[in-house]
């Protein structure tokens, strides 16, 4: 039986025998149900089903969470089945983002599994007539080593019983005793993904499904003036639906719906000219909300007075798209007053609320099921396709699938915001940074505060990365993009530190270490430099090597890169990247390496080519021809160093290593050719311009 087809009630009734552990979120977070945050079932067949509200986006949580569970419960990893992101059977979760699955949810899951194990041991002690302290557990079987042959399995223990326990305390194993956590088993999604059996929201084949193509405006802010759907309606099998702002053509074949959509004659009134990808930065500086001091120590004036030279610079980055290979997809079915929506989303529970509101249903009559998701990176937090599919299913009385085409994907993307950072800094005669006055506009304040030893410093942030924080500021939607805020903040800070190292005439690694008392930053920086074989020299050394460090929500990263710059074309080839990361306990080393490699590769995009082109509300990038994402020919040699740090609880690893990529490439470019880049992406045109500037 496929657990994805079961409702929670069905799971409960099914489990006439079994052990139930219901456990609270730790620490309790607002919005979560007070009683439990996750749900774990040990079946009479010995299989363990873990129901969590997180989703598998490719980041490997399905495997890493199962490892945590198997570790604490002492069962084989293969016996754990994960059911993720199904609002009917999984407890509420805010969404899969922020590298939180392991950092925040991991401890909850470990605690639950540990408690389940304790309960099972009590049962075993009774059955085997031995004290709990004498028993041993391995692969779901409890044995009494002092009495040969005395053995009982978890499956036998739960047979015919129904036990519920509410957890208060959650003693967990010592890291030193781990046998499953810290290993790199085969990913749980591996077989499905290499055989093509993995199903995504657009692969849900519900008989009679209509494929919907929705009429879209040519620009944000455009309004519909006139429409003629006569020709579209004449396409055999096509059906046109108009419901307020929602005008769609539906057909049993997707491509025929595409054709019919093309036959709709619509006239839109374009919005007044606004901003474009060149004028945006001035606009953001002017229109950003008032800044807020997020961190301050010492006195800026005093720091400036102590400086022998002041250095003020401005850094910019463009809007960046998520550009997941799977476009936003959903399939909706309404039957008997209940809507079921398979959605490629990072936020199934918030989407449940949104769909319920759009349909006028109570949330309990809306079920969001999250199959595999073809990449997220923050872009599938917003999931309008699920709402549109549900609305159209209600309007037509048929199952409806909405799969965005690539142009819709760009148009409705919640871009990483364009942003501006200004830094005023000063160096003393002894080459020490005496002052740091940092202002970030429109990227957000996450990790904006610098971590070097600077006596007089202030960090100010104006506007955030969430569109809701600054309505009307941007010409389209913005939102979280892998490590929100921090790509921008790291680019500015680490570029600027390099400029100061250059002014001081000191090697950039040495200069950083000279301003660093944070042991964890020092450790990753030294590890990356060592692995790279860093040879100290002031910049520009013409070798094309650069360094950058960052802290991201408890994870420490240092990256060293080597680049080659073609001075005649401005083209950059990144040849080698070494990344050292300290994420506390490593749950799955290979999984962490996948995330680091993926971050480095993806990060080359926003460093070198990725920027959204737009004008007057129109998104000019509609496909991968003008919007260039990293490809095989860009691939540097990638080396990863995982710092062994078992004393510190696991923090996130899917986002941190991407944040250094802008600065490390910029610093390596400077080292190669002496041209300083102040704007991302560092396109050939911008590099040629910088070379000309000298």
């Amino acid at each position, binding site marked *: 039986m496929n657990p994805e087809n079961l409702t929670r009630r069905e799971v409960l009734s099914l489990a006439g025998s079994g052990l139930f552990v219901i456990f609270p979120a730790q620490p309790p977070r607002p919005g979560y149900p007070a009683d439990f945050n996750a749900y774990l079932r040990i079946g009479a067949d010995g299989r363990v089903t873990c129901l969590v509200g997180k989703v598998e986006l*490719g980041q490997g949580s399905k495997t890493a969470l199962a490892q945590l569970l198997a570790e604490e419960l002492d069962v084989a990893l293969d016996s754990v089945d994960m059911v993720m992101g199904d609002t009917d059977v999984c407890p509420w979760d805010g969404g899969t983002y922020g590298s939180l699955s392991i950092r925040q949810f991991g401890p909850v899951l470990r605690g639950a599994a540990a408690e389940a194990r304790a309960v099972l041991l009590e049962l075993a002690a009774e059955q085997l007539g031995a004290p709990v302290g004498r028993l041993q557990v391995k692969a779901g079987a409890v044995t009494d080593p002092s009495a040969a042959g005395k053995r009982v399995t978890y499956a036998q223990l739960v047979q015919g019983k129904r036990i519920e326990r509410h957890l208060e305390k959650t003693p967990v194993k010592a890291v030193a005793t781990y046998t499953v956590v810290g290993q790199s088993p*085969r990913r749980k999604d591996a077989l499905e993904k290499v055989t093509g059996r993995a199903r995504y929201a*657009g*692969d849900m084949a519900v008989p009679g499904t209509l494929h919907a193509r929705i009429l879209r405006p040519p620009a944000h802010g455009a309004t519909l003036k006139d429409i003629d759907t006569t020709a579209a309606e004449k396409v055999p099998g096509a059906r046109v639906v108009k419901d307020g702002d929602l005008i769609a053509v539906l057909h049993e074949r997707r491509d025929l719906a595409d054709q019919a959509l093309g036959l709709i004659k619509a006239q839109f009134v374009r919005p007044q000219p606004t901003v474009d990808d060149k004028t945006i930065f001035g606009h953001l500086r002017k229109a950003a909300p008032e800044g807020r001091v997020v961190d301050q120590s010492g006195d800026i004036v005093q720091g400036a007075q102590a400086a022998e030279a002041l250095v003020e610079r401005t850094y910019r980055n463009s809007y960046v798209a998520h550009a997941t290979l799977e476009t936003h997809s959903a399939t909706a079915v309404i039957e008997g007053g209940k809507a079921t929506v398979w959605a490629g989303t990072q936020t199934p529970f918030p989407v449940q609320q949104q769909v319920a509101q759009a349909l006028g249903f109570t949330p309990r009559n809306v079920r969001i099921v999250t199959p595999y998701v073809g990449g997220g990176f923050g872009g599938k937090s917003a999931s309008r396709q699920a709402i549109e599919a549900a609305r159209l299913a209600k309007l037509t009385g048929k199952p409806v699938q909405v799969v965005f085409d690539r142009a819709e994907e760009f148009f409705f993307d919640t871009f990483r915001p364009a942003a501006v950072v200004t830094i005023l800094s000063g160096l003393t005669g002894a080459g020490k940074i005496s002052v740091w006055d940092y202002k970030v506009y429109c990227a957000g304040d996450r990790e904006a505060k610098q971590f070097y030893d600077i006596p007089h410093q202030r960090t100010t942030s104006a506007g955030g990365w969430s569109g809701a924080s600054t309505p009307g500021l941007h010409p389209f939607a913005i939102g979280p993009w892998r490590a929100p805020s921090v790509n921008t903040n790291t680019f500015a800070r680490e570029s600027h530190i390099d400029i100061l190292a250059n002014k001081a005439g000191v090697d950039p690694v040495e200069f950083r270490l000279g301003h660093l008392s944070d042991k964890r930053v020092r450790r990753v920086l030294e590890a990356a430099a060592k692995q790279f074989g860093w040879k100290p020299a002031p910049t520009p050394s013409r070798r094309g090597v650069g360094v950058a460090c960052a802290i991201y929500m408890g994870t420490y990263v240092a990256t060293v890169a080597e680049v080659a710059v073609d001075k005649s074309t401005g083209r950059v080839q990144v040849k080698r990247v070494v990344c050292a990361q300290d994420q506390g306990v490593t749950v799955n080393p290979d999984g962490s390496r996948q995330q680091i490699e*993926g971050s480095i590769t993806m990060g080359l995009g926003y460093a070198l080519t990725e920027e959204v082109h737009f004008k007057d509300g129109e998104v000019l990038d509609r496909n991968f021809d003008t919007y260039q994402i990293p490809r095989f020919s860009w691939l540097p040699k990638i080396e990863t160093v995982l710092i062994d740090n078992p004393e510190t609880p696991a923090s996130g690893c899917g986002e941190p290593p991407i944040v250094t990529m802008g600065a490390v490439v910029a610093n390596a470019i400077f080292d190669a050719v002496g041209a300083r880049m102040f704007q991302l992406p560092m396109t050939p045109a911008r590099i040629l311009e910088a070379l000309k500037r000298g």
Partner: protein
Amino acid sequence: MQRTISFTLNGKPARVTTDDQRTLLWVLRGDIGVTSVKFGCGAALCGACTVIVDQEAVRSCSTPVKDVAGKRVLTIEGLSQERQLHPIQDAFLKHHAFQCGFCTPGMILNAYALLLKTPRPARADIIRHMDDNLCRCGSHVRIVEAIQEAAGAMKGGAR
């Protein structure tokens, strides 16, 4: 033009009666139900829809179904035989040469086309051949390693 088009799909006869200008992608996904063939861009720019037609990698999103009349079409379902993974699939699995998995069928099939023609590719051959297949998760380094390993395992004998 509406007509019946016959071809071989994963070794078995297939036949559709439809407008022959429709793309192979949507005929495979919609009319036949082969969902491993992915829609990514619709313009032959990403490679997620790659299938093999008579030993050549083809972008099904930009191929009219009439072009495969009488030909042999292979999707990833046809790559593994008797539930035995193909060496390329084995290598992708072993190297975890995927994350979200959405580009994976297209990657594996494009690699298959490479190894049919160039059983012992150099690293540069792999990169050149795979360059127009996009992966957003950044599994590239592992995909290259997996293809190298598969080439070794197949000992020059692609099937």
